[in-house]
């Protein structure tokens, strides 16, 4: 009886009398990530940053094609046309679109090629740091006890290193290269990731579904991968996005100090470092690579912020409460 009544109400609500109800749109289940993406799409700043980042990636991939379009290879020195008569770099707008550097190379071509090193180091170092950090942090938080003590103390030691100084020492011993830059950056950032992940796992492992999985006989490894890790996707995604610009700046700093990617490879840090002798007279030499660096890090930072808001709607609620 009640069942029929409920059925009738449903039919009336659907607007169709009798049995020929128009087929309703099925209710779609949306995963948290889909919901987050829907929220992110509404945020114009984040989308703009995403576009900037995609453009940067394309520039990095097609760097060779772009520079051959310009006609000035990044390491070609145009000593006659690319330098002012007094030996200073030429300004923007003349022979070179963005001006030349102190030995007559095209700044634009070099910036385009510099995108490669920056993005490569930023992304790979972050991926490496996240991989180590998540593994160690998850184990520390999940197992607790003595394992946690050992792993947490290890992370504490890594966080106590005067990292830039030690990084410089490491680079000087192994002689500078892209690979060693990536390794050094990952080496000194994974502990930050590990600490955050550990804190999250500490609360996740007390959840009922972890207990349920365990009572069904799931092993530790399976629980960590299947039950714990998916809950870490949001914070890891946000943190990685914010870690990439840090790694890019770290690489540029190493290059600036002369211990990054060896010259004449064009990197933004190398260019800024090379500009030091003449930038007071030719500010473009400093400003354009700095701008490239600034736009890249800003785009990643803004996107990270947008991602945080999209993945964690709680943050918006705190604001609404006021």
């Amino acid at each position, binding site marked *: 009886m009640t069942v029929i009544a409920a059925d009738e109400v449903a039919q009336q609500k659907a607007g169709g009398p009798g049995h020929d109800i128009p087929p309703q749109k099925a209710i779609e289940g949306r995963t948290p990530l889909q919901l987050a993406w829907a929220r992110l799409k509404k945020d114009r700043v984040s989308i703009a940053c995403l576009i900037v980042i995609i453009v940067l990636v394309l520039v990095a991939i097609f760097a060779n094609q772009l520079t051959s379009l310009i006609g000035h290879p990044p390491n070609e020195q145009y000593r006659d046309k690319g330098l002012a008569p007094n030996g200073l770099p030429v300004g923007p707008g003349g022979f070179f679109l963005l001006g030349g550097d102190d030995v007559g190379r095209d700044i634009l071509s070099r910036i385009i090629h510099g995108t490669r090193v920056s993005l490569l180091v930023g992304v790979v170092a972050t991926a490496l740091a996240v991989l180590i950090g998540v593994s160690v942090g998850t184990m520390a938080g999940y197992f607790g006890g003595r394992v946690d003590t050992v792993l947490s103390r290890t992370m504490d*030691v890594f966080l106590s290193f*005067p990292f830039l*100084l030690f990084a410089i*020492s490491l680079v*000087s011993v192994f002689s500078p290269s892209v690979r060693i830059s990536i390794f050094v950056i990952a080496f000194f950032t994974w502990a930050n990731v590990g600490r955050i992940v550990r804190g999250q796992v500490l609360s996740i492992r007390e959840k009922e579904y972890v207990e349920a999985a365990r009572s069904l006989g799931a092993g530790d490894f399976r629980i960590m991968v299947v039950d714990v890790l998916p809950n870490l996707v949001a914070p890891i995604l946000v943190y990685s996005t914010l870690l990439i610009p840090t790694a890019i700046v770290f690489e540029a700093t190493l290059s600036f100090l002369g211990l990054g990617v060896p010259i004449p490879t064009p990197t933004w840090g190398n260019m*800024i470092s090379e500009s*030091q002798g003449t930038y007071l007279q030719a500010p473009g030499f400093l400003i354009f690579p700095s701008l490239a*660096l600034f736009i890249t890090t800003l785009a990643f930072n*803004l996107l990270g912020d947008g991602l945080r808001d999209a993945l964690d709607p709680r943050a918006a609620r705190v604001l609404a409460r006021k």
Partner: protein
Amino acid sequence: MGRFIVRRALFGVVVLAIISFAVFILFFVVAPGDKAANFCGKGCTPERLAQINKLYHLDQSWISQYWLYVKRLVLHGDLGYSFNNQQPVRAIIFDRAPATASLALGAAVVWLSLGIPIGILAATKPRSLRDRAATTFALAGLSIPTFVLGLLFLYLFFYQLTIHGAAFFPGNGYVPLTQNPWEWMKHLILPWFTLAVVSAASYSRITRGSLLEVLGEDYIRTARAKGLSERRVIYRHGLRSALTPVVTLLGIDVGTLLGGAIVTEAVFGLGGIGQTAVTAVVNGDLPIIFGTVLFAAFFIVVANILVDIAYALLDARVRLA
């Protein structure tokens, strides 16, 4: 509390031992080459080589050199002698430390007085125009590398002022406070602001975030319901607990900077600990590298302990065990 401090201090000593050990392994085991021969240079005579080996104990195994190093440090507070000019490392560090300390502490004052008010302004009117402006400032500051900002400052405030006949800021160098306070300040203003603008960004962000969270708490509603003025609610009740994360960050940042603000020192040629360390790394001056790494790590370890203590004093909910 006492037990906590002792335990943390002991762990700090262990951390310093591990770090110094790591540096020794890096330079004695991993790094290629005969240290004494490198140091002696091209026109090296066997007598001089023997002399160097005797003086610096470079002919012994690295583990016994480490043991010797630790023993000298603990018993005499001695950090050895520089390869380059044979000066005691301790004297070099003490000589360079005031420049670094002036830079770090002065910059901290500037970034706190920039960052915290901006954070408060943003948090008290979330989503307003001034919040947007504050957030933009914070993100821009976070995205600009220290060396870029430093070079930009040099271009604008040193070079442009100088060529327009209004020279005020010197381009580089450091003048001790005891020698001439006015010159000391003039030499440090640009470095202070370089470091401060970059850091103020994260301070304003953290102040904003944490104050927003605190202002949503029940006791703030109670304070408002009692009829307290908004000023009092924010500054007396809100800010006190909102500043706890700021104190944490401040401790770590100042601790790290006291061990050498490498980039800022390099841009402005301040000749502090950081610059000394970088020069030593480039020249392979091992005793100075060991000394400066240990010096920097010491400040980081002490800062961490102080931060934990401050945390307990500021936040009644935290108990140290």
